[in-house]
């Protein structure tokens, strides 16, 4: 009886033996990638040395020296570069937040209307979607900004007895080529109570809706949820507004000197950037919504009708929950796109983080590498947070297998 010869390990097995091949490939790839990274790091260090530059973030603590027009937090030119970066970050987040909301509203409406049976409405939406989707964002930002600055009157046109321009909505809103001036709320004594009442009514709405759903599941009765919610939203706050003696008043914009003062100033750059980004991204969202609705088979609608559900309930209870599963994942990437595209802000002089930290600060301090790394880190973290939040939402609506 002879034993089969014991196979000794040969080097060629690393390539020709399928048991080892994938390991070999992974090890080689790993070594190459590490070598590439080491080369990059080494190159950076060498070149920084050749330029006589060091690598440190101390510049963030030094005085910025420049002014920023739109500030959501306290900032003067005596503040630090880190503070300037924070102002920019908040400005970026503001554009991203407002832009995402408008884009979602516009996108959902346009997506549904594009499926309309009305020929003109469907075609108009097709023109909107194709027009915005197929022209670069930057052009839209510049177009909206050009309209804002060229087609609207200057503040000084509002001056005088027979002024060329006048404020709209009972003299409360001024649309100028420097932006839109609207009344701003002034929080007086007792305003905090009013806010508390408002928050309490929000909690009330939530609790009522929960109760209504439970009751419907148990008894089959449907309560008029919408009207009661609407009432809860407005009535307690309005009653308390008068009981507390009108704690919140409005401050109206007024023309003084060179500009309007008082009220809230929505700068042209902010409006142009937000609107252009929202309309551009909205066109993509419209397509996502349309594809989501089309993905739900016609049989579902017919089955719902056969059960006697009315069209709006069919949409809300049958079509949309299924469509959302298709809509949400691409919607996440649209939100990310909008957030990242907001870095085009410098084109219209909006002071986002790219313009403050990644623009003026880098330029004044010469810290390109550090600034760009921080900037990249900020966008990375923001994007990851947005997708994490959206993924949680996605998990909550996705098909639950029971």
């Amino acid at each position, binding site marked *: 009886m002879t034993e089969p010869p014991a196979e000794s390990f040969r080097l060629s097995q690393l390539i020709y033996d399928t048991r080892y091949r994938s390991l070999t490939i992974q090890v080689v790839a790993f070594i190459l990638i590490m070598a590439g990274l080491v080369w990059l790091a080494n*190159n950076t260090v*060498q*070149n920084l040395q*050749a*330029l*006589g*530059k060091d690598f440190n973030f101390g510049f963030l603590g030094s005085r910025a*020296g*420049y*002014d*920023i*027009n739109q500030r959501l937090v306290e900032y*003067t*030119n*005596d503040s630090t570069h880190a503070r300037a970066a924070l102002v920019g970050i908040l400005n970026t987040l503001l554009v991203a937040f407002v832009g995402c909301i408008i884009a979602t509203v516009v996108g959902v409406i346009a997506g549904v209307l594009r499926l309309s049976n009305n020929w003109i409405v469907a075609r108009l939406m097709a023109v909107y979607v194709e027009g915005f989707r197929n022209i670069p964002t930057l052009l839209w930002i510049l177009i909206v900004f050009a309209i804002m*600055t*060229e087609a609207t009157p*200057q503040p*000084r046109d509002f001056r005088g007895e027979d002024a060329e321009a006048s404020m709209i909505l009972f003299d409360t809103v001024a649309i100028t*080529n*420097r932006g839109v001036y609207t009344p701003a709320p002034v929080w007086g004594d007792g305003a905090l109570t009013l806010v508390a009442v408002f928050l309490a009514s929000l909690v009330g709405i939530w609790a009522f809706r929960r109760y209504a759903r439970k009751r419907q599941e148990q008894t089959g009765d449907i309560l008029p949820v919408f009207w009661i919610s609407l009432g809860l939203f407005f009535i307690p706050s309005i009653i308390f507004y008068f009981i507390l003696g009108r704690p919140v008043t409005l401050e109206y914009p007024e023309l*003084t*000197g*060179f*500009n309007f*003062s008082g009220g809230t100033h929505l700068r*042209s*750059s902010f409006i142009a950037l937000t609107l252009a980004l929202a309309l551009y991204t909205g066109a993509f969202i419209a397509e996502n919504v349309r594809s989501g609705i089309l993905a739900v088979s016609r049989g579902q609608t017919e089955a719902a009708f056969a059960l006697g559900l009315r069209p709006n309930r069919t949409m809300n209870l049958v079509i949309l929950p299924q469509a959302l599963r298709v809509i949400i994942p691409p919607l996440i990437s649209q939100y990310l796109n909008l957030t990242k595209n907001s870095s085009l802000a*410098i*084109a219209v*002089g909006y*002071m986002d983080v790219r*313009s403050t930290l990644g*623009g*003026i600060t*880098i*330029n*004044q*301090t*010469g810290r*390109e590498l550090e600034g760009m790394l921080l900037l990249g880190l900020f966008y990375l973290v923001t994007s990851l947070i947005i997708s994490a939040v959206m993924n949680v939402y996605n998990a909550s609506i996705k098909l639950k297998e029971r």
Partner: protein
Amino acid sequence: MKKSVLLGTLTIAGLVAAAGSAQTLDEVQARGSLNCGVTTGLVGFAAPNASGEWEGFDVGVCRAVAAAVFGDPSAVNFVPTTGQTRFTALASGEIDMLARNTTWTFSRDVDLRFEFTGINYYDGQGFMVPRELGVSSAMELDGATVCIQTGTTTELNLADFFASNNMSYEPVPIETNAEAQQQYLAGACDVYTTDASGLAATRATFEDPSAHVVLPEIISKEPLGPLVRHGDHEWGDIVRWTLNALIAAEELGITSANVSELAAGTENPEINRLLGSEGELGGMLGLSSDWAVNVISVGGNYGELFEANIGEATPIGLARGLNAQWTDGGLLYSPPFR
């Protein structure tokens, strides 16, 4: 095989481009042309003309350096840069020198690791407003909206000026001079501020220049000059002495008309040294002995460049003022060619 050769070349090119900061002259000579950073367009200083050729006062400096190195003023690639991109372009080696009305400051010279090779225009920051506003002094600008190019020293001066005078303002940050012009004319800002020379040049391109006034206050010192990367002194010397040659030529009465005649030799030993008929100044720079002749025959001496591009006979109409020779009460003063 071909592909790997190509990739190899690219890698080496990348390495060379990344590592090379010391031998700019060799690189420029090997490339056969000079990469010169200029503005994106400021009439009189650097702007393409109707046939697409760059011309202007700063462009003249670029051409003079090209003439010194190659004897050919057209061997220049003009790279338009904005206030924000210019320093990165120079530090990264994308351009060999920057002639873009850039203010010489301590931190740019020392901290940003650049070397200013002289001053070709003594300037200061001013304000321009529409005449119909009825403003006659910068002290009346409280609450105004001000257009400003971002990434410039003017941005910092502006903040300081308004803060020290207890006035408020709304800055409108702008990327290029052309955008600023459009915003200002549309009335999106009340005031445009930049170097006074830039204001004059911008105003000259308006449909009705007389409808705009430049306010009398000059709120800063803005010595503008060409700059190169810190550390390559041979290259810095070439740019520095090219500029000095232009200035000295005016002082010595060398013009584009008489330079070839004077190059044959004169009674004045300094002219002879400058133009290469005596001594070896060109060789010391690593250039040919007739380098200065080439420099001056391009657009003439400093005074000729000034008059042709931004002087009183042009629409921009700047007076020499501080930029006159020291012998005429100005600040231009070239060290001797010896």
